[in-house]
C-alpha cells in the first residue's frame, strides 16, 4: 500500500504552519478578499470569491508546467501565488470528494468563453489532488503536440505512427519533477526493449523508464506510452488514485498543421503521443478521475467564436468523450470583481491615480466586461 499522506516537502508544510498564525493578527484589512486557508480540500462556499495563497516551494513542485504565462509573470512580480476560489472549481472538488473510485473514471469537461478562467480552475483541482496524494498526469497544453513540431520521426514500434522526441522529452522532465515519489514506488509489469542493447526488466521502478526516455531522446515518445500504459493498468488496483488533467483536450481530435515528408497532412491518431493520450482519456479504467479543459485559443481550424463542447470537439471528439460532466466557467461575478480589484490595489499593481477612484473602477469593469483576462490585460499598463 502506498503512503497516502501529504506528498509535499516537509519544508513547505513547516513554512505553512509558521505563516498562518502570524497572518491573522498582522493584517486585518486583508481579511476581506484573502483567505488563510491554503488547503483546497477545506475550501467551501464561504471562501468563494477569495484568494488563497500557494507557497512558492509548492508551486515549483506541483506546477513545473501548466500555469498560464501571465500568471507566472504575476507570481514573479508579486512574489506570491494567489489563486481565486471560484464556483466551478468548488463544484468540481465536491464531485471529486464524493466520487466512488471503484466505478470507471468520470470525465469532466471545463468549458467557457475565452479568458474566463478554465486553466486556473484546472490548476486549482490539480493542487487539491496533489495535496491529497494522488498521482497527477498533467498535460499543460495538448495543442503544443499537434502543431509547430520541428522533428517528426517514424515510430520504431508501429510503422504507421510518428514520434515527437522534443515534446515527449520536455513533458517527461516535468512529469519527473512533479511525481518523484510515485516513480520510485510503481513497478513495471512487462519487459520493454528499447533497442538492440537497452531493455527495462519486469519489476523495475517506473523512474527507470523515464530516465531511459530522457537519456535516449529518440525513444522518448515510446517511454511516454509505456508510462501511461503502466499507470492505467495499475490504477484500478487501488494503491494510488490517478488524476488525468488535460488542458486543450480538443486538440486530440480534429486536424493538425503537421505534414509528413511527402507533404501529406498528418491526422492526430498518427502521432504516438496523441494516440496514447486518447487511450488514457477513455473511461475504461477505474480508481481516479479525468478532468479536461476545452480551449479555443491554441486550437487549429476552429472559429474564434466557438466555445461549446459540440463546436470545439467536433463529432469525433464528442463521441469519444461522450458521457462527460460539463462544467461551465463564466466571467467574474460582481463580488469576484471587487475581490480581484482589491487585490490589485493592495499589491500596488494599479498605479494610476485615477484607478483608485470610483470612476476608474467603473471604467475598468465596463471595459473588461468582468472578463478575467481582459481585466488583467487592462490593469497591466495602468
Amino acid at each position, binding site marked *: 500500500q502506498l503512503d497516502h499522506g501529504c506528498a509535499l516537502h516537509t519544508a513547505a508544510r513547516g513554512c505553512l504552519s509558521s505563516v498562518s498564525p502570524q497572518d491573522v493578527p498582522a493584517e486585518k484589512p486583508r481579511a476581506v478578499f484573502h483567505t488563510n486557508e491554503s488547503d483546497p480540500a477545506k475550501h467551501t462556499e464561504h471562501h468563494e470569491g477569495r484568494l488563497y495563497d500557494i507557497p512558492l516551494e509548492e508551486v515549483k513542485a506541483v506546477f513545473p508546467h501548466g500555469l498560464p504565462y501571465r500568471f507566472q509573470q504575476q507570481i514573479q*512580480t508579486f512574489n506570491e501565488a494567489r489563486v481565486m476560489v471560484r464556483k466551478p472549481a468548488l463544484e468540481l472538488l465536491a464531485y471529486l470528494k464524493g466520487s466512488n473510485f471503484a466505478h470507471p473514471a468520470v470525465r469532466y469537461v471545463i468549458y467557457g468563453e475565452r479568458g474566463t478562467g478554465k486553466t486556473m480552475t484546472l490548476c486549482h483541482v490539480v493542487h487539491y489532488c496533489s495535496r491529497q496524494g494522488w498521482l497527477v498526469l498533467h498535460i499543460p497544453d495538448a495543442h503544443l503536440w499537434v502543431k509547430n513540431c520541428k522533428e517528426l520521426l517514424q515510430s520504431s514500434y508501429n510503422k504507421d505512427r510518428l514520434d515527437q522526441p522534443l515534446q515527449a522529452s520536455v513533458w517527461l522532465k516535468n512529469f519527473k519533477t512533479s511525481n518523484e515519489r510515485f516513480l520510485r514506488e510503481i513497478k513495471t509489469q512487462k519487459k520493454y526493449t528499447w533497442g538492440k542493447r537497452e531493455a527495462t526488466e519486469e519489476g523495475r521502478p517506473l523512474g527507470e523508464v523515464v530516465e531511459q526516455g530522457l537519456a535516449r531522446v529518440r525513444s522518448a515518445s515510446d517511454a511516454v506510452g509505456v508510462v501511461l500504459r503502466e499507470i492505467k493498468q495499475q490504477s484500478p488496483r487501488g494503491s494510488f488514485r490517478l488524476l488525468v488533467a488535460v488542458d486543450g483536450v480538443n486538440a486530440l481530435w480534429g486536424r493538425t498543421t503537421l505534414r509528413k515528408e511527402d507533404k501529406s497532412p498528418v491526422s492526430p491518431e498518427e502521432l504516438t503521443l496523441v494516440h496514447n493520450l486518447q487511450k488514457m482519456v477513455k473511461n475504461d479504467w477505474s480508481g481516479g478521475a479525468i478532468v479536461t479543459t476545452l480551449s479555443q485559443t491554441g486550437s487549429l481550424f476552429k472559429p474564434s467564436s466557438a466555445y461549446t463542447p459540440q463546436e470545439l470537439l467536433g463529432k469525433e471528439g464528442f463521441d469519444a468523450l461522450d458521457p462527460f460532466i460539463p462544467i461551465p466557467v463564466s466571467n467574474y461575478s460582481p463580488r469576484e470583481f471587487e475581490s480581484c480589484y482589491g487585490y490589485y490595489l493592495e499589491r*500596488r499593481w494599479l*498605479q*494610476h491615480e485615477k484607478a483608485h477612484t470610483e470612476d*476608474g473602477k467603473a471604467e475598468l469593469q465596463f471595459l473588461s466586461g468582468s472578463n478575467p483576462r481582459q481585466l488583467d490585460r487592462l490593469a497591466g*499598463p*495602468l
Partner: protein
Amino acid sequence: MAAPSAAGLGRRLRAWLPRIMPVRWSRYDPSYLEPEVNKEFYQKPLEKLTEEEREQMELKAVQPIKAAPPTLSSSVFSDPMISKFTNMMMKSGNKILARSLMSQTLEAIKRKQLEKYHKAPENEKETIECNPYVIFHQALKNCQPIIGISNITKGGKTYQVPVPLTDNRKRFLAMKWLITECRENKHRRTMMPEKLSQELLLAFNNEGPVIKKKHILHKMAEANRAYAHFRWW
C-alpha cells in the same frame, strides 16, 4: 451655409447639402462647434452654470457639432502626452500595434520597479517610484533640451546658431530622440517595449544616451554663443 463652389455647369445649379455621414475635415463650416468630451461638464446641475455657459448650452442644442477625432477619449485614463508618443511610434498608420507596444512598455516599467520595490529594505521603499506615468513624464522632462541649434546662412557660410525653442518643439525633440535611440542603437532582436522601458528608466535617473545627446546639444549651443546675434527672430 457655404455657397456652392463646385466646377461644372450642371453641378453649380444644385443646392449644397451636407453629406449624410459627417467626416472630420479641415474645411468644416464655421458654424460647426467642437465636441465636449469632459464628463464633469455634463454632470454640473443647471443652477451652477454662469451666463456664458448657459448661452453655450443653448447654442449646442441648435448648431451642428464636428465629428470627434479618434484620438479624443472620455476615459479617465487617457493622457495627451502618451497619445502623442504613441502617434510618433506608429508606422504606416498601424495605431493598434503602436498602442499595444506602448501599453507593454508601461507594464514592463511597472514590473521592473515593483520587483525592485519588493526586494528593497523598508527605509528605501519610499524612494522607489513605481508609477509608470510619473516615470514617463519625468523622463521626458529630463530629456527636453533648453536651447536648440538652427542653421543660418550668412555671406555664403552656414553657421550653427543657438536659438530658443518653443514648448512643443522641446517635447517633440525629446520624444524623437527616445524613439530613434531605441530603433537604431540597440540589438536587432530586442523587443521595443524592453528597449523603451530601459531607456525611460535611464532617462528618469538622468543617465543614458538620450540625456547625453541633450548635453552635447547644450554644449554646442554654448560653444557657438558668438553667433547668437545672427538670429533675427
